[in-house]
């Protein structure tokens, strides 16, 4: 189950961050997302460590903490998508699929003429779409 998703711009400015838990872990999840940004930068700037898949958008598992797994995705426009999940066995294909739908929703939100590039995404349609995608991810990996 995905507990938190975040979109971070190319200057590491937050564009959208949303947690899907009931508890008060929101701050802890924000901290996890923040730490993962360093891992993304390291992966991108260090070609030896990332291996053959240097130019792919999907970055894979960034780092596992004791309860969470953090996945990353970097677009061509240097925008990072981070997803934090509590599932222990997550199929790579499911996460890739999730990020693809997430990217499509992001592109639609950014194409809004009233959206200011670099500022936070405030569209309610976008928020609803993201929660639909997150719920669909939960269902597909549980089945």
């Amino acid at each position, binding site marked *: 189950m995905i507990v938190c998703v975040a979109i971070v711009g190319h200057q590491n400015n937050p564009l959208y961050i949303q947690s899907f838990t009931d508890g008060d872990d929101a701050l802890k999840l924000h901290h996890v997302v923040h730490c993962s940004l360093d891992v993304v930068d390291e992966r991108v700037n260090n070609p030896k460590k990332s291996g053959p898949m240097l130019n792919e*958008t999907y970055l894979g598992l960034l780092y596992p903490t004791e309860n969470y797994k953090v996945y990353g995705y970097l677009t061509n426009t240097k925008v990072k998508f981070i997803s934090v999940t509590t599932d222990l066995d997550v199929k790579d294909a499911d996460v890739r699929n999730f990020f693809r739908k997430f990217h*499509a929703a992001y592109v639609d939100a950014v194409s809004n003429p009233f959206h200011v590039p670099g500022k936070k995404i405030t569209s309610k349609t976008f928020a609803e779409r993201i929660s639909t995608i997150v719920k669909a991810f939960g269902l597909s990996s549980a089945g």
Partner: protein
Amino acid sequence: MGREVSESCVESLLIEMVSSYCNRFYADKQELAARRIEAIGYQVGHQLSERYTMERPRFSDHLEAIKFICKDFWSEIFKKQIDNLKTNHRGTFVLQDNHFRWLSRMSIESSPEMVVSSPDGEDKASQAMSMHLYFPCGIIRGALSNLGIPCAVSADISSLPACSFVIRIKA
């Protein structure tokens, strides 16, 4: 999920946009009109590049990004690719489109009713024509800066209907 609009609508909108900015909003400040039009193009290019780079892997260097502009980006917007790409390998690229779609129905021959001496008439006509080029220059600049490449873009219409765009990458 995409809705389609007829091409003539888009062209009419662009022509009206240039005409409004040059003749109504900034009638005696052509420089400002040009900059506003270029800024609109910048935002459009920014958003379009986000959409058209969606499925692609990341670019490894500037040349790949410019090639993307010449091939995929240009075909999405103008249904054709750039015909000729030249570079001096030091940050300047010249993109030549032999039949630029948005200018294909415009001519810069001054009309016989205008009683002006011929060099002046041609200058005014080509200046009016060049206002229409600020928007595509802005689109290219917006797309490249979203890909992390700050640059300056200018256009050259010395040989219609061919049109060249000169991209100078800021170091």
